[in-house]
């Protein structure tokens, strides 16, 4: 058996970077990108710009955590952009038009988001509608409802304390919204890594039948994950509302692809069961740093689209090349 042992142990060393679960390539990509930008522009490497980037990735960051959960169980959620808009409009309407205090409007908006996630979860588990279709439908429905709330109008102007959440830098560093995002990322990371509920997601995504036979309630886990993802999308909507000091039913259009991209760039596999929050954070940062950097480099918007596409492929392809060599 000794030859076998050598062979099987070879795999061990690679797990040192295990927390990144397949995102080492993207991490290298992110580092190279940062080094390049630090050299190419004098504004990139500054505390102020770093804080700017954090501000700019808040919404994407919050949504990507939920999407990571969904993709880990082998699902997909195309409705996050619309649920974000729905949550915003509910909050805006309750707060500014129905005149409820924000402290009530916000939880209610999150509740509505949760319900949209619940509907998706039930469609997926009970009616066996593919997640792609269930969430595509929810994307359309939630957007429609968001529009109907104010007949398509935006709502502008929230209480000062609310908008200051996205502006005031506490201790001169982090805004409340950035802090919120970081807290969510850390909690999600701990949850996935150390809680048995978190490990269940990997089991369900790895093979739902195996998970079922091991006594895991796959349906419940699935529903829970879609609810969580929707609530985080709703929360991202609240964050965005604070940031824009306005809500608008067209918000978040197309965010679903950005979010999925961040997760997948971060090494989480679309077939489920592999990946994690560490990688997602890298994916989000790659997107954030890239957009920020291209602006600092004063690259024209059209050329930016081209470069973004190329860098995304390189970041993900690098992981393959790295593995091939290893």
């Amino acid at each position: 058996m000794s030859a076998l042992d050598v062979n099987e142990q070879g795999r061990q060393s690679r797990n040192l970077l295990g927390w990144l679960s397949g995102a080492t390539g993207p991490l290298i990509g992110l580092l190279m990108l940062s080094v390049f930008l630090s050299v190419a522009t004098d504004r990139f490497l500054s505390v102020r710009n770093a804080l700017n980037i954090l501000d700019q990735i808040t919404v994407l960051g919050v949504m990507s955590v939920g999407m990571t959960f969904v993709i880990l169980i082998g699902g997909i959620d195309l409705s996050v952009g619309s649920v974000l808009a729905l949550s915003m409009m509910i909050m805006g309407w309750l707060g500014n038009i129905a005149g409820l205090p924000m402290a009530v409007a916000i939880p209610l908006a999150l509740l509505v988001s949760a319900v949209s996630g619940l509907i998706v979860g039930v469609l997926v588990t009970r009616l066996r509608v593919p997640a792609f279709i269930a969430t595509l439908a929810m994307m359309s429905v939630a957007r429609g409802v968001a529009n109907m709330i104010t007949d398509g109008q935006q709502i502008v102007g929230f209480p000062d304390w609310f908008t200051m959440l996205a502006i005031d830098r506490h201790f001169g560093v982090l805004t409340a919204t950035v802090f919120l995002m970081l807290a969510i990322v850390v909690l999600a990371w701990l949850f996935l890594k150390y809680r048995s509920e978190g490990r269940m997601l990997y089991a369900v995504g790895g093979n739902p039948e195996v998970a079922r036979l091991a006594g895991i309630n796959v349906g419940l886990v699935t529903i829970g994950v879609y609810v969580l993802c929707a609530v985080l999308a709703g929360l991202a909507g609240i964050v965005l509302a604070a940031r824009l000091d306005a809500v608008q039913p067209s918000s978040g259009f197309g965010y679903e692809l950005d979010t999925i991209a961040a997760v997948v760039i971060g090494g989480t596999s679309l077939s489920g069961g592999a990946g994690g929050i560490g990688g997602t954070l890298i994916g989000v940062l790659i997107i954030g740093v890239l957009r920020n950097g291209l602006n600092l480099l004063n690259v024209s918007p059209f050329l930016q689209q081209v470069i973004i596409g190329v860098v995304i492929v390189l970041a993900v392809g690098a992981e393959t090349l790295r593995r091939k060599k290893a």
Partner: protein
Amino acid sequence: MTDPVLSLRGISKRYGPLEVLKNVSLDVYPGEVVALLGENGAGKSTLSGIIAGSRTPSEGTMTWQGQPYAPASPREAIDKGVVLIHQELQLLPELTIAENVFIGRWPMKNGVVDRAEMIKRAQEQLSRLNLHVPATRKVAGLSTANQQLIEIAKALALDAKLLILDEPTAALGGAETEALFEQVRKLRSEGVGIIYISHRMEEIKQITDRVVVLRDGERVQEFADSATPVRTIVESMVGRPLDRLFPALPVPRQQPVLEVDGLTAADGTFRDVTFEVRAGEILGIAGLVGAGRTELVRAIAGADPVRSGTVRLNGEGLTLRSPADAIAKGIVMVPEDRKLQGLVVSHRIGENLVYANLDRFGGRWITPSMKRDLARKAISTFGIKGRGEQLASDLSGGNQQKIVIAKWLMRDPKVVVLDEPTRGIDVGARAGIYDIIVGLAKKGVAVIVVSSDLEEVLGVSNRILVLAQGKQAGILDREQANDVSVMELATI
């Protein structure tokens, strides 16, 4: 005698109009090993699933330790101490061995998974089975045999009062099987009730106390003494007298068809292998699990890259970059895992036959009648129980395996490689497959059979090549080959 730990009364199971189990009753007592035997499709796994809570019976009742028992989910059964080792591997390749062993019941400390404890306990379970692999390693990439051992470790880690093993040794070699039996005996002595399912008849005598036979979903017979002659048990299973398992081998012709010289795998799994197979000859390949047998034959079939060495067919040197290259030259392979490599199980039988012969349709329209003809020919030639428009997944294992063989034989290959051709296949169906193998040899095809079943290699091979840790330990002629001489070479 004590009370049974589990009693089944009048259990039936229907899928639509199909009655898979009919009025089955069974008692299992603590500290005994009951063999549950039957042909492919007899209903053994279905019955196991019902006991373990993953399927619900259509009729009948169960009693667990004297209490009514009707588990609604696997969880409920596990919590009561009913543990099933499934016939199909139930592992998560992307997770570590330790996590797989404790899946769904990870040891906890302070509300979080206690990794150190989990790894420690998993490692203990592995060493009970003589598996010396770090528990922190991912399951992906482990050999089938090792995965099967992990599957067993998973069950051992549970505090079972009733353990069902559904063909646990199908993918195991002799040494692994012995390690497993040791654990089974230990559990038996601790008073655990055990149901043991297998198609390997020689195991029955070794490990079981009592034999229950299922046929077409019905309990047909019970042998209280496991020393009952195998022939008697087999005839009870198949419902007719069975003359012999292995047909007589033809005499190989003189000219070598396949010549392999100094072949070494790109990743070094096997090194410097040299042999030839003549027309009408069956070459067996034996070795311990992990010896590199599968890799060797995959390389010959163009599926895996080689570092050095040559393969010649009828004297012509071949460069095999892909399975397509090998197939075009007339070398075909029936792979080790029919579900993952042999068949698109979710597709129809007719389609699966077409997939292996697409190049022959090249440039032409494939009409439904062509597909039908192909299916009809395969089904009649190989005595397959099934119809062209059935999904491959609906067939029993033996019939699936015949489809995998049939899809290649439609092309008149020159070399046929079969890797574990009867894994998980009942005795009756096995005899049918051996007939096919020998029939090929009679037609002058060069045949290679890889098998972990020693009886099988000995039974169908003109010569046996033994691999040990990737190296060629020797080639034995039929006259010299027996369990002892093969194992001696395999364990060098």
